[in-house]
């Protein structure tokens, strides 16, 4: 799976998934796996360097503005994201 650039045609593997939602839509306390980052190159690189990359498992501690997530299934770095950035991250919910 790869990160998508904004305005680029998404690949089937991510967009066709019926359970794909944006991170901003996830409720507090939910666990999710990042499957797609829809942003420009630099933002993708920044998010990836901070740990928010494809396949990362996150826990949503706060929904809305700002959205706060923990990496590594809730035990890693805690990151605050403005709602606009949270909308760029697409995830699948984990049980």
């Amino acid at each position, binding site marked *: 799976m790869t990160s998508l650039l904004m305005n680029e045609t998404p690949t089937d593997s991510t967009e066709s998934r019926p359970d794909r939602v944006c991170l901003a839509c996830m409720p507090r306390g939910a666990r999710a796996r990042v499957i797609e980052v829809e942003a420009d190159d630099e933002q993708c690189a920044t998010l990836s360097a901070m740990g928010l990359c494809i396949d990362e498992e996150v826990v949503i501690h706060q929904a809305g503005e700002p959205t706060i997530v923990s990496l590594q299934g809730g035990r890693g770095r805690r*990151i*605050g994201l403005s709602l606009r950035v949270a909308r760029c991250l697409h995830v699948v919910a984990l049980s």
Partner: protein
Amino acid sequence: MTSSTPTSVADTDPSDADAGPVGTIALFGNPNTGKTTLFNRLTGLRQKSANYPGTTIEAHIGSTTLGPDGPTRVVDLPGVYSIHLQGVESTLCRQVLEGSAAAPGLLAGEPDAVCVVVDATALREGLRFLGEIARFRLPIVVALTMLDVARRRGIEVDPSALQERLGCPVIGVNPRKGDGLPELRSALTEARVPRTAPGASEADVREWVDELQERSSPSVDLLQPSERVSMKFDRAFTHPVIGLGVFALIMTGLFWLLFRIATYPMDWIEGAFAIAGDVVGGVVPPGLIHDLLVGGVVPGIAGALVFLPQICLLFFLLSLLEDTGYLARAAFVADRLLRRFGLPGTAFIPLLSSHACAIPGIIAARSIPNRRERLATILVAPFMTCSARLPVYALLVSLLFAGRPALAALAFVGCYALGVVAGVLTALLARGTILRGPATHMTLELPSYKAPSVRTALLTAYDKGMVFLRKAGPYILAFSIVVWWCTEFPRTGAPEESQSLRTQAAQIEEAQPDEAAALLVEADRAESKHALANSFAGRMGRALEPVFAPLGFDWRLNIGVVTSFAAREVFVSTIAIVFVGDEEAAEGEGVIEAARTATRSDGETLVFTGGASWALLVFYVLAMQCFSTLVVTAKETGSAKWAVLQFTYMTAVAYLAALAARYAWIALS
């Protein structure tokens, strides 16, 4: 990962790598890993700051003793998440590793060793960053920090397992307490090139990181209760209502402390330099050198040093606050307020700092990663009411609202509000025109809450104070001497009025000594007024009459406008000389009374009419009357053009707003 893993760029035997004493160690790490605290621990006060050539990035260079071979240089690089991002900090880190950039005063070349600081609570990201650096095949030591916090979160990291796989020293340290420092010092003399590094592709990197993490941190326990509490704090501190309340409370407290505490050392400095001026005046024989020292050099040094307590205290308090982890949360609250004006949440601290002095505010704007947003913040920071404006406000508000304290207080608040409104509207204008560009949407790491380190805060305050003195000090001193020269030259003889007063004093000296002394004081004042009126500053005041006449300014007010370009508060002392003839009158009611009754050349019209006073007040709220700030703007933006733009724009806005204020007053009255 095994030695045959295809993700390795080059697997080398550790014994091949150079080991032994090193000359320069470069410190790399992600933000919030404790890198700078570690640097401070290693170097103490044996450090200095300077910009990397051609950049506004500050290099912190210090020295430490690792072994018997004498001191070793340590360079603290800016904290970045990746060396492959486009930002100047990432580019600089990359160039240092390539050997194409060097800290000021050092020759370019690869560092002898690299110390990579990895946060155990963010091991994956730290290892990813380590992988980027490992590709440069330089001797490395890994300093593993935050092991205690990781443990609280249920993460166990085994440094020895990591060391075994990497083939370079991995040392667990606690920079705050100093634990592990002796081991790290020892390891830095034995830095080695890692035997493994990831390939360039994302899949290779992930595989490399996964393998290392599996070996060093296999077990994960349940989340600890302390972490749940800190998450509740996060929710409260970023809440639209509660967060804003906490934010307002903390910032009010910070500025109350700042103004309350800094007043004492500022008074001491002013008092000490007043004594120094007297001492120098008594020791150096009368003449040009005497006047230069007493009138230009001593006040110039005092003018630079007097800001130091506010600047050091501000950065001390901000460092404490940042260390607690609160500022990252506060940035999201500020972001909601500032975003609509094209500024990021991280601009709040620079703008707030500018209410003490624009210089530390502009320096603090370095924390804004986006260049356009940083420039916009720097451009508008001097609109905020700094403490140097307060004496001017006090004078003018006293003239406008004599005997009406409630209205005077309201006018003071109005001045602060006008500055803020002008600043944010200017930011909106700049971001829509010359600094147009996409807004950075906040993505911030929220570091763990912890007790702040006083040691780090003290070192930060010391460092920022030195940066201010080096950057602004020489210019403040130089401009003070220029202003002294403009007000002292050309020298003219005593006016007839003073000669007559002296003659009268001589005649009654024996019979009425008190009256004679009073006449001599009057003669001195007449000479001071005459000298200033005929000086270059006085001539400039007259030359500027056509420019400022629409605002209702008398030529004597123009002298104040010219001299206060050195520092705004100089306006009050200039007015004291112009209207009273005695600079010391600026401290008391004398200057207000003299200004209230001063008349123009026709002998009837007041100098400080209502319209002129309102215009002057608005002009001082908005005008860029601070040479030192312009110097710092030029240095921080890396170009004089931004300083010129700032001066031109603010002066134009101030002039037009002052004109509008005067005519509004005339229309209403």
